[in-house]
Each structure stands twice: as C-alpha cells, then as structure tokens.
C-alpha cells in the first residue's frame, strides 16, 4: 500500500532542495543568534525604555507567525514601500527575527542563572560591565544554553520549509510539487521526512552530547 518504489526515482529531485534548506537554516540561525544577545542583555538591563523595547521585540516575534512575516516581506514590501528584497533574504530575515526572539529568551535564562556573586566578584575586581559579561558570565552560560540552542536549530531546520510559500525550491516545496505530479503524497512526504530526519538526527545527538559534557565539567565527582 505504501509504494515507496513508485517515488524513489524522484528522490534526487528532493535532495536538490537540501542545500537551500540548510542554507536558509544556517543563515537565519547565525544572524538570529548574533542579534539575540544584545536583545537578551537589553531585556535584563533595568534601563527604562530599552528593556521594554526588547520585550516588545521578543513578544511580537513570539506571538505572530513567521509565515506572515515572509508574505509581508515578499509581497507587501515591494508594493507598499517599493523595497524588493530577494526571496532568500526575506525568508532568512523572517526566520532570523523569530529565532532572535527565541534565542534571546534562552540567553536570558542562561544569564540570569549565573549567580549574582559572579557579577559582584568581577565588579569588585574592576572589570567593566561588558568585560564582566564577556569574560565571566557568558562562558558560564554556555552549558545552559547549548542544548536549548540545538533544539532551536532543529525546529528552525523544519521551519525553513516555510520558504515553500514563496516557491523557493527547498525540500518541502519540491515534495509538494512531486506529490501533485505523482499523486503519491504519503510516499513523497515519507521521503521528505526521511531527509529531515537525516539532517536533524546528528543535531539531536550533538545536543545530547553537549548537554552531558558541559554539565560534567561543573561536577566535582
């Protein structure tokens, strides 16, 4: 009943979507993570206005679907303000924004988990606020943020399929087209799922290993 043989010949067509899927994922993850750090710091900082701005950013991108950001960026921006970004920029940008919101919360969790005493000790030594953050606090958050960051990356990889709504030929778009052509959506989507599995599984293993290793360094037995 599940006739994988009927679609297996189309497998290479799906594989052609892998570089684009991986590209969108990596670019939006890296950009989102870099942006997330100042947002997280701004959220923690008790500076009036700045924290609220950061919170607004986080909540906006947490509560509205990235699909909308993509459609807006791709279809509305050219019409409304005359800016015509290319498809990759739109998708990577939209996903980077929602990633930055998620990663900011992860960073915030990590930073607030570092005991106050660490800030105090480094302040008394004369380190500037940025030096405290960079040399003392951030290295200690690593073990807390690595695993959830990996999870974000895993979700992002799957979310990159949103690029399909603007016809970018990544894995999922290719899958739907194949499904329409062959009328075998279950078989095609099974292949699609398999590719996603192969892409994400190493990340999941990595995340588990990182979690184990980084907590080891802090145990004294």
């Amino acid at each position: 009943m599940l006739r994988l043989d009927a679609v297996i010949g189309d497998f290479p067509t799906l594989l052609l979507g892998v570089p684009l899927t991986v590209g969108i994922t990596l670019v939006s993850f890296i950009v989102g993570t870099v942006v997330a750090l100042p947002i997280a710091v701004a959220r923690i900082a008790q500076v009036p206005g700045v924290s609220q701005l950061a919170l607004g950013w986080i909540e906006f991108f947490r509560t509205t679907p990235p699909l909308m950001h993509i459609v807006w960026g791709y279809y509305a921006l050219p019409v409304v303000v005359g800016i015509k970004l290319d498809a990759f920029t739109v998708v990577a940008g939209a996903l980077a924004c929602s990633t930055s919101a998620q990663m900011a919360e992860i960073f915030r969790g990590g930073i607030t988990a570092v005991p106050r005493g660490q800030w105090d000790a480094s302040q008394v030594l004369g380190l500037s606020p940025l030096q405290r953050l960079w040399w003392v606090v951030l290295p200690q958050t690593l073990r807390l943020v690595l695993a959830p960051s990996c999870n974000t990356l895993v979700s992002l990889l799957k979310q990159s399929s949103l690029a399909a709504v603007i016809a970018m030929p990544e894995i999922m778009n290719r899958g739907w087209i194949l499904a329409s052509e062959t009328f075998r959506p279950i078989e095609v989507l099974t292949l699609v799922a398999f590719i996603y599995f192969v892409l994400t599984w190493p990340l999941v293993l990595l995340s588990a290993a990182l979690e184990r290793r980084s907590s080891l360094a802090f145990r004294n037995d």
Partner: protein
Amino acid sequence: MTNTQHKLVAIDHVVKRYGSVTVLDDVSLSVDTGQVAVIIGPSGSGKSTLLRCLARLENIQQGRISIDGAVVLAGDEDAKQPGAPAGAHAAYDVGMVFQSFNLFPHLTVLENITLAPRRVRGMSRTDAEELGMSLLRSVGLEDKRDSHPVRLSGGQQQRAAIARALAMRPRIMLFDEVTSALDPELVGEVLKTMRGLADQGMTMLVVTHEMGFARDVADDVVFMDHGSIVERAPPSIIFSEPREARTRLFLERLLEREGGTGRTR
C-alpha cells in the same frame, strides 16, 4: 560631620534603603591605614550591606563614603557634591572576598587571578602570571595553578579567592564571613592567611563569627544591630565588659550553642 579627614576609609552618615526598608541607618565608621576592624552582629543587621557599599556594589541614599579623602560614593538623595568626581580613585582600591568564594568556575585558579590584572590593568600575560604565581605561593597554592575551582577543597578555594583579590593590589581588603561556608577543620588555613595579611599591614574590614580571630587580630570590634553601629571598642574591652546590653546579649547567644555547661571560650 565627624572628623574623618585623614582616615583611609571614612563612612559618613550613610543611609541605605531597599524600597521602604532601611538597612543602614545613619552609619558612620572610619578605619585608619593598617587597621583591622572586625564587624559582628546578628543576621540581617546590615554587615554585608555595609561592606558591599564600600565595594561600590550598592548605591546609597544618603551620606558618603571616602577613601583616602576622596569621595567614592555619595547618597543619591543628597544634593550633588561639587569637587572630586566619584571614581577618582580606581574601583580596585578595594578588594573583597565573599562567603561563597565566587571563583569563576570556567577558569583555572591562575586564570582566575590573572583575568583582572590583564583586562583591567592591561598587564601582559607573562607579567600577570608571574604576579599570580607569587600570590599563589604566598597562600600556599602554587601546585593548584592549573586546577579548576571545583577540584579544590573549600579552604583552598577561599585562599585562591583571596589571592585573586590581592592581584589588583588593593589598599583595603573586605572579608564577608569568608570562613562560614567551610568545613570546620579547613577554617584554620584561611584564618592563617588573613592573619598573615594583617601582619603585613593591610587595612582590613572583616565580618566574621570567629571570635578567636577577632580577639587576636582586630584593632577594633564593631557591633552592628538593626542597621546601626551599636558599639565599637578594642576586643579586650568588648568581650569582657561590653558597654551595651545588646552587645552582651548577642555574645551570650553566640556562646549558648556551647550548651548548658557555661564554659566560656
């Protein structure tokens, strides 16, 4: 205002509040160069807060704190002071050691010590490590230079924390219950290190419950309660004939744990 012109540390009428709770209530205290002041008092009386204000980890509402005559912290409810701007003295004139050590867990002992000299003073790695090693030797930890803090006993961690604070060459050292998180048989080694510092003439403010240390090392013992300084006197006087009833009551309670034997120590 009390005359604190020539004192190294001068705390003048400091008021510190958290919201509506007054934690330091018009506290004035001065310490001369080379003096050791031991601060005692019940839990919550404001001892830690006083040290934290000196280290500029807190802001204050009223009064001011000067080091060597220069105001380093002023009450934010007071009118803005003319003259020396806050921070005229480098923040690292004051070194502080905490009850919970607060070593940086991701760095080795030597890296803990060299971080601030390198990043703040801009020392070269070689110079900083040389300085670090000489300090480690002085606290008897040269063989632990490359260990991470978790691999050290509590006493060793605390000595490393002292070395870290000293690496910035502070003129004043603050100690906040530095032995109370330690196993009793490890307390001695840390107290010995502190004794050594006092002998070398370091100006020190020490919050501690170690009455033996207070008796032997302190020039003055300061008793705090409810955010105020109740009494200040040399140890020989405060332990034998405290002026205030509150001081006597506190010291008695400290000894109560010794049981009904009435033994003094």
